[in-house]
């Protein structure tokens, strides 16, 4: 998938934030592919790794702010999972920073765009 | 020639022993220096066995040096590094060379030492070790085989009067007493009330065993805090840490000696216990200062 960014977006926060970014016509890189999930907690390591296998440049997992998850612990568990995924990537000498968890609220379109820009910056830095 | 330790325990009002830590390496001159300095000022020199799981010159080796230089050695034997065969063999050797006082300990965990990846043995525990030495004294080895030659060790062990919770420790002491020991050397104590309570407890079971209070001088608040966090079985109360914290810079050692001497005096004057065991590791040359300040010289 030649250098796409795959973003798993929680339907309670990141997904509406992305919609709002659209409504405000805030622009961000075209290589972003959003996959809607019911909670960041649904995102599993294998989803992230498969995305990399398919050639994703980076994977973002986006959920609610800590303490505002509709399912209490979904975002915190996934944060840990993403941290472990960093390790798995580092183990194979890949840039662990290319998988990252972002927390935002549904009314934070700027934060959404900021996160996409941040990961784009990381991709550039890691030289892909 | 030094007086045998067993005799001292029986006759002397207030027994004083000190710890001699073996060197790291084959150069034993420093150890000999300490032995020379202390051998006539104390009733026994207690030699540690890979203390804190840090590999060193063997306890038995230094014990032989003590013997050579006219002191009275106490051999420490831990259960950590040797299985029952090795321990018995070492003891036979020790006894044959005149080292006839043994202090039985469990030993610190490998984890606190400098060879963290070693396999720790603990084939026996300290209570079993005491039983083992009695077996040797009776002329048999652990497997029940007759031994050639007479063996008669004077057996001591350790205890932690300030443990929290205390009860499990006391049960273990009970077992050690039941196994039969002639002296108990306590871990460093800083609250004499705790020591008193401990002695009372022991006396109820056995009024003959001699109890030597453990003295480890602390020379600074930081060291005290470090010991509390890192040295197993040591509990330094806050009031002492505060006292140390208030001493001016550079006078820590003097303060440590002062506190140690104060405690020894109190132990002796109030007949809290039968003696002291001074552990001033790395500053063995200061032990005479403590003894002097405590009025024991």
């Amino acid at each position: 998938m030649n250098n796409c960014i795959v973003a798993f977006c929680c339907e309670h926060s990141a997904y509406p934030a992305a919609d709002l970014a659209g409504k405000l016509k805030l622009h961000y890189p075209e290589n972003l592919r959003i996959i809607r999930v019911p909670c960041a907690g649904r995102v599993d390591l294998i989803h992230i790794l498969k995305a990399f296998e398919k050639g994703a440049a980076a994977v973002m997992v986006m959920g609610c702010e800590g303490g505002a998850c509709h399912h209490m612990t979904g975002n915190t568990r996934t944060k840990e999972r993403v941290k472990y995924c960093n390790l798995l990537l580092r183990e194979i000498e890949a840039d662990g920073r290319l998988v990252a968890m972002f927390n935002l609220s549904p009314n934070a379109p700027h934060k959404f765009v900021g996160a996409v820009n941040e990961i784009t910056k990381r991709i550039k830095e890691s030289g892909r | 020639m030094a007086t045998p330790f067993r005799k001292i325990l029986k006759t002397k009002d207030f027994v004083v022993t000190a710890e001699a830590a073996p060197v790291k390496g084959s150069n034993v001159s420093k150890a000999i220096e300490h032995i020379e300095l202390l051998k006539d000022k104390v009733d026994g020199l207690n030699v540690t066995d890979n203390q804190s799981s840090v590999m060193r010159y063997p306890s038995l080796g230094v014990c032989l040096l003590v013997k050579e230089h006219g002191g009275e050695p106490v051999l420490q034997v831990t259960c950590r590094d040797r299985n029952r065969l090795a321990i018995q063999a070492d003891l036979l050797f020790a006894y044959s060379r005149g080292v006839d006082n043994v202090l039985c300990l469990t030993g610190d965990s490998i984890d606190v030492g400098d060879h963290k990846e070693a396999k720790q043995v603990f084939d026996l525990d300290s209570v079993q070790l005491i039983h083992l030495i009695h077996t040797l004294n009776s002329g048999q080895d652990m497997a029940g085989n007759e031994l050639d030659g007479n063996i008669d060790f004077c057996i001591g062990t350790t205890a932690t009067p300030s443990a929290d919770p205390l009860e499990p420790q006391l049960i273990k002491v009970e077992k050690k007493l039941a196994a039969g020991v002639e002296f108990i050397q306590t871990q460093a104590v800083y609250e004499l009330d705790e020591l008193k309570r401990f002695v009372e407890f022991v006396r109820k079971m056995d009024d003959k065993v001699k109890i030597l209070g453990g003295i480890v001088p602390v020379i600074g608040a930081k060291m005290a805090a470090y010991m509390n966090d890192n040295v197993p079985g040591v509990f330094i109360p806050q009031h002492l840490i505060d006292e140390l914290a208030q001493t001016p810079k550079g006078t820590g050692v003097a303060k440590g000696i002062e506190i140690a001497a104060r405690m020894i005096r109190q132990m002796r004057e109030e007949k809290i216990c039968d003696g002291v065991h001074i552990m001033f590791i790395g500053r063995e040359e200061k032990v005479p200062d403590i003894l002097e300040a405590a009025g024991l010289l």
Partner: protein
Amino acid sequence: MIIAERKPMDEIKRMLAPYKKVLVAGCGTCVTVCWAGGEKEVAILASQLRLARSAEHNEISIFEASVERQCEREMVAEIKDKVTEVEAVISLACGAGVQTMSEMFEDKPVFPGVNTTFIGMPEKEGLWVEMCGACGDCFLDRTGGICPIVRCAKGLLNGPCGGTRKGGKCEIDPDKDCAWVLIYRRLEKQGRLDLMRNYYAPKNYRAVKRPGRIQAAKA
């Protein structure tokens, strides 16, 4: 239950370096429960391996399979076909599973993908603690059901060492309870403290003749 944990990737990569067709084999029992070798872990390892090898431009083709118990020949036989197709197997089962596989497929190298660590139980999700040393001479009747042989850092049989920390914590880890303090409390609660006062002679460490072997008398 047997507890295991995934080996570091470096080690796995090294073992599999010469091969281009590999089977990642999971086991559906203990190692699944302890999150080390179930279907999910198989998929993760496979994916990670593919990524690693493609980064090195040394593509690898990986099969994934799990059986219910890798320590059973009959169950392992189910994936025989897959094994035939590959050059090597990396097993995420415990040591018993790895050896069963090796034995069944003698012509194929079977590598351990996990380190088998101990027999334990979960304290909470994702945290397992050692409970049993499989010494073959169970001592639990005397210690209130708490094993001092593995749960005491020194395996002492006659009470705590002198190094117990404040509050009854273990000498080597302030987060762990001293097993003997636990035993004391348990026995006290049961009114059986006399058990702790008994002297226990040195343990028979040959209760199980290694390698262990048990023939059921009933059979």
